[in-house]
């Protein structure tokens, strides 16, 4: 984070209902500790960067025109702002601005890409391939298409969460129109081999869609080099506003798709509805900031992530990393803690705002389908924690988080007869429990 952003973040003392980093207060034991709860859920959503908010505000009141009003300067001013934002979004993924379709968010982008392409092409090619670990809105879109007669192959992933390229290549048939594979997973942060997938798709004449909601602004992406045909982008995962996203749709060779929302014919007919100028500006600004700060920020987050990982695993045995270590978002750590109970663990670390799965499913007690797909045992899937680090995460927060996790897990294990047995060398899996 550069000095400007730090200043902006510091000056903004009320980010929601808790401070997000940078401030410290006196703890009970007289040591410095950060404000709690500490926000470590940056894959669920990110606070809007104050610089983004600043950029948006004038477009609510002073520059309020409808960007589609072609007859007066109020409209032109709004249109200019929207087009600048479109350039900023295009720049961060190496696209042409004319390839960017603004949407209400990544869920809509994913729905539009998947349903739109398959509905347009299904008379000739009615097969698509995706992964079992995709975001729920990709899987749900695919299920809706199945009801419309589209054939969907849901490929498993390897134990590290990555797609097996041989398996993927073998799944392609002459009827395959689309492969939808996410850039980075929202729960375990693993980064799929996009360039390899893109190359395979291009050779086989299959469209490649990637849900890059978690990846844009976090890792370098280039739609040309990676041969990506469609890419979903989210505003609120990159310090922009909620309710805003984009879909990259390749022009050459042109990707044809059927619109999901019909009406005034905005966004070249692919997405009708008045464009929300302030939200477009916010997404554009968020992309511009991320593009500028990505290299340094990725290094910083990776160091913090490793500090967290090592800080926990150095002091706690039987902690497992979910998902590949190398091919991973800098700000993601997903750990399972053996011999503790999931709900107890969440209660024990309630000073940390973390998640046990994706935000959409976080109210449910089902173990994560992503972790199950990796072959993680149900018990361990129940005790997994996703730590999401981001722009406003500080070293003090990470050190505090380490203390909290180590304390809570140690305490829970002390109370656990299973842990005691394991310490005595009893293999718990070999025990035959009496039925009651």
């Amino acid at each position, binding site marked *: 984070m550069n000095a400007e952003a730090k200043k902006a973040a510091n000056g903004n003392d009320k980010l929601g209902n808790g401070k997000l980093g940078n401030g410290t207060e006196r703890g009970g034991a007289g040591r410095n500790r950060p404000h709690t709860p500490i926000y470590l859920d940056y894959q669920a959503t990110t606070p809007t960067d104050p610089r983004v908010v600043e950029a948006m505000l004038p477009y609510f009141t002073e520059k309020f025109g409808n960007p589609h009003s072609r007859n007066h300067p109020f409209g032109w001013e709004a249109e200019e702002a929207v087009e600048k934002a479109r350039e900023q979004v295009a720049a961060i993924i190496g696209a042409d601005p004319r390839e960017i379709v603004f949407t*209400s968010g990544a869920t809509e982008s994913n729905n539009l890409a998947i349903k739109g392409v398959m509905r347009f092409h299904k008379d000739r090619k009615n097969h698509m391939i995706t992964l079992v670990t995709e975001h*729920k809105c990709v899987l749900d879109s695919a299920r809706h298409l199945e009801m419309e007669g589209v054939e969907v192959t849901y490929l498993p992933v390897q134990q590290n969460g990555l797609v097996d390229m041989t398996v993927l290549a073998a799944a392609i048939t002459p009827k395959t129109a689309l492969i939808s594979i996410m850039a980075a997973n929202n729960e375990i942060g693993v980064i799929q081999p996009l360039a390899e997938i893109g190359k395979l798709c291009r050779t086989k004449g299959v469209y490649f869609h990637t849900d890059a909601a978690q990846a844009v602004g976090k890792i370098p992406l280039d739609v040309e080099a990676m041969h990506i045909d469609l890419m979903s982008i989210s505003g609120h995962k990159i310090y922009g506003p909620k309710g805003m996203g984009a879909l990259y749709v390749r022009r050459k060779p042109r990707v044809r798709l059927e619109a999901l929302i019909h009406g005034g014919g905005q966004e070249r007919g692919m997405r009708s509805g008045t464009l929300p100028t302030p939200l477009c500006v916010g997404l554009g600004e968020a992309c511009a900031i991320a593009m500028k700060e990505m290299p340094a920020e990725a290094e910083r987050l990776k160091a913090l992530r490793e500090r967290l990982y090592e800080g926990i695993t150095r002091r706690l045995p039987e902690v497992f990393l979910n998902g590949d270590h190398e091919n991973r978002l800098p700000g993601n750590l997903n750990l399972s803690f053996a011999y503790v109970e999931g709900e107890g663990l969440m209660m024990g670390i309630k000073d940390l705002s973390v*998640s046990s799965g994706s935000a959409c499913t976080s109210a449910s007690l089902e173990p994560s389908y992503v972790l199950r797909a990796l072959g993680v045992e149900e018990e361990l899937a129940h005790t997994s924690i996703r730590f999401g680090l981001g722009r406003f995460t500080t070293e003090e927060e990470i050190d505090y988080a380490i203390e909290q996790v180590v304390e809570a897990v140690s305490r829970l294990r002390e109370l656990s007869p299973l842990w005691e047995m394991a310490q005595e060398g009893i293999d718990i899996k070999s025990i035959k429990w009496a039925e009651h």
Partner: protein
Amino acid sequence: MNPPVYMDYNATAPVFPAAAAAMGEALKIAGNPSSVHRYGRGARKAMEDARERLAAAIGAQLPAIVFTSGATEANNLALLGTGRSRILVSAIEHDSVRGVSPTAELVPVQRSGVVDLAALERMLGADRRPALVSLMLANNETGVVQPVAEAAEIAHRYGALLHCDAVQALGRIALDVSALGADLVSLSAHKIGGPAGIGALYVKDHVTLKPLLAGGGQERGRRAGTENLSGIVGFAAAAEIAVARQPDEAERLRALRDALEARIQAERPDAVLFGIESPRLANTSCVALPGIAAERQVIALDLAGVAVSAGAACSSGKVRASAVLGAMGAPADLAASAIRVSLGWQSRAEDIDRFMAAWAGLRKPSLAA
């Protein structure tokens, strides 16, 4: 030159300062409303408070409100989500209603701009497949208010659902969605002084909706996607203001609009005002100046710093005669010379003077010169 005058409120409206301030605060809320930790609960609380305030402002029950990315999405969701095999839409509906189903049947309107209820009843009686009727509450081009309650009564008699696009009516006439008779009602924030990018569909509890956007199960499974929190907060704030001010504001704008129309008729007796025999929004005037293309009028007004439109904003890039006026039986050349003047919360009497100064002098292009 004087600052430009904005008279295109039916396209979009400036955001109320209080709504903008509320959004500025909401943008600072860190947290996804679906997350269970404290940040998430804070976001959810802000969202549910806003839902409650919006519901109160429009007379709805809480679970009936589904937030969408705007009225276009709300209209699409209503028409496609109910899964009715037959869709009837009035001939003056917005493109986001008319353009949704290629097989939609058009219910004609009368010369007054009011839908032909007898025709609606005949059409419903002629084909007994389960239908959905879509009728807007107030037209975006003429402001003519439609008999939605009567249409709903007819629709229900034939087992049809009634959807009402109330985008232009909210904050401009008294609106109680529960009393409207409609099963589904679309609303938009940015026409009333709220932000663009947020709308809502009011859904009566007996209506089951198939979502347009599949995914995380937000909005009780009716609309997936992380909610536009700042937009929702801004929408609620704007709706409260607009609804509270509505009676006085309608009176104020009616006086301005009527003064404008009186001067139009005095200065240019050849001008044609549309929909004036019908109940009409107080802020809207649709006026044709025969022989002078709407585009020319709009450009001349723009040069004088007055912003109006030659039809709906979304189609204003295209030069074509209004389908709404055509449906009212206006000849194509007359419709092609019609502009829309729409007023709102920042409109002042001076704006009318500015408009008249630029518009009254417009003359037909003279071939003799």
